[in-house]
């Protein structure tokens, strides 16, 4: 490692004047403006509510969902791994005994506060039994109160995997 001396550019008079470069830049922006005003715009913006985004990738981390077992019951065993892994501490789990014999424990409550969540996906990685996923594809979650953003177990379970 040494210090790399980068030669300074812009020693010619033209470059030192700066004005040609500035006018060049302004020409570029103007050409964009005119193109976009003309019949062949390059505008990439979609008119969102009316036009929906069509290029969301499959790996997009949307709102969480809790997966179900084949029997429709919650897959989660309330191991708290996700809550531990969560950097934003937005997962609140209350465990209870599972009496149906399928497993030993299950969450009594499983709340995720989306206002806290940073959508990092650490909980998904941490889950030992693939009980939590973020493949619902919901990129826009709307609520009118703060309380609306705390998703309960039921709501999480209700989220469906996004179909491609």
């Amino acid at each position, binding site marked *: 490692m040494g210090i790399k001396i980068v030669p300074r550019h812009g020693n010619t008079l033209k470059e030192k004047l700066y004005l040609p470069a*500035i006018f060049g830049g*302004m020409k570029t922006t103007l050409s964009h403006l005119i193109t976009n*005003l003309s*019949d062949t715009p390059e505008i990439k*913006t979609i008119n969102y509510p009316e036009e929906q985004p069509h290029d969301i990738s499959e790996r997009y981390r949307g709102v969480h969902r809790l997966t179900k077992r084949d029997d429709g019951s919650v897959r989660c065993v309330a191991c708290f791994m996700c809550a531990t892994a969560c950097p934003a501490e937005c997962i609140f789990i209350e465990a209870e005994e599972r009496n149906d014999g399928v497993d030993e424990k299950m969450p009594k409550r499983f709340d995720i506060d989306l206002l806290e969540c940073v959508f990092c996906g650490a909980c998904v990685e941490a889950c030992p039994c693939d009980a939590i996923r973020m493949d619902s594809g919901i990129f826009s979650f709307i609520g009118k109160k703060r309380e609306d953003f705390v998703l309960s177990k039921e709501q999480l379970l209700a989220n469906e995997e996004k179909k491609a």
Partner: protein
Amino acid sequence: MSTISIAVVIINVILALLFSLGAAPILVWIERRVAGLIQDRLGPNRCHINGIRLGGLIQSFADMLKLVFKEDFKAKAIQESFFFSLAPVIVFASAFLSFMVMPFADDLIINGERFIMQGLPMDLGVLWFLALAGLSVYGIMLGGWSSRNKYSLLGAMRAGAQVISYEAAMGLSVVSVLITYGSIHLGDIVAYQGQLLFGFIPAWGIIIQPIAALIFIITAFAEANRTPFDLAEGESEIVGGFHTEYSAMRFGLFFVGEYVAMSASSALIVTLFLGGYHLPYLNTQTLQAYMPFILMVLIVALPLGSWSAMRWIQKHNRWHKANDIRNHESAFLQKGLIGLNVLVIAGVGALLVLGLSETSTNVATAVIQIATFALKLLFMNFVFVWVRWTLPRFRYDQLQTLGWKVLMPLAIANIFISAIIVVARGL
């Protein structure tokens, strides 16, 4: 004071108000739309009143309303609440007042009475602008200081130092312009620019004094705190600069004041360098002499222009859902344009048929000149916006270096050269 003079005065004031204050929402709109279009996106285009969006212009009014009705919040730490409230007023008022001396048209003569077409009929001219530009910095500095917020203070400091340093270069560049024109009165300056240079080039300031024009435009950017000199706001490093703590209408005044100041700068640039209210090759005398001819050209040109505008609207002003209320807008605009055409042609036609009296010629000249001025003003404002979305912000030391080491010596050298030329020509 006759009725006409009162009317003219009122019209003048209203025009000044329109050009400055009324222009503010339009400028906001232009800014946002142009920004969008330059960056390959749409600007605001949704807000509407009964389907009428005017390309998103309504959004500006909506924002205004929002600012007016928002909660006026003041942090508890702010002790100097008087100055805190005063600051935006100063910014706004000084920007607004500085617009007041711009001539929109040549002196209007009605019934032998001469009216100066300015908001405030003063002959101080460019000095008035310089004075108020100097005062406006108090608003920024007071606002930043009384906010008791270090970011605000930093912003205020930056603004203060910037304005002080650029004011010098600005004043000097103006001096060289004044040497050329031989007057400080803006009306005389514009009248001078109605001449032709070598018989075929309009003697606009930008052609006679390109260096002064360049310096003045640059410093005007700095005085108006516009990018690339908007370090006072510097949202990326000091949050929002001097207006971090402001909200609601207090913020609104800052916000509007900035656009008014921009407008005022543009108006001065137009006046000093872009021929003011003159159409190229058509100064007041020519206009008055060839008035019928020009009106005829107008009758022909206006429908043509409207027709292409209508074509454009038809093509672009569509909405996605067929049943949206906003789809009516296209038709409304077309009807409006046609109505305007009819009105203008009828009026002008009536004038032509009835024959032009001197007064009506004068009034028509004034109207045309006001329109010209408005167009030039709009163009200059557009340039402001255009530059903003092209150039990145300066670093602070670069800003000062530019001001003191480049612009100032250049301006002084320009004064020398101008003076020598003027004296040589005079001999």
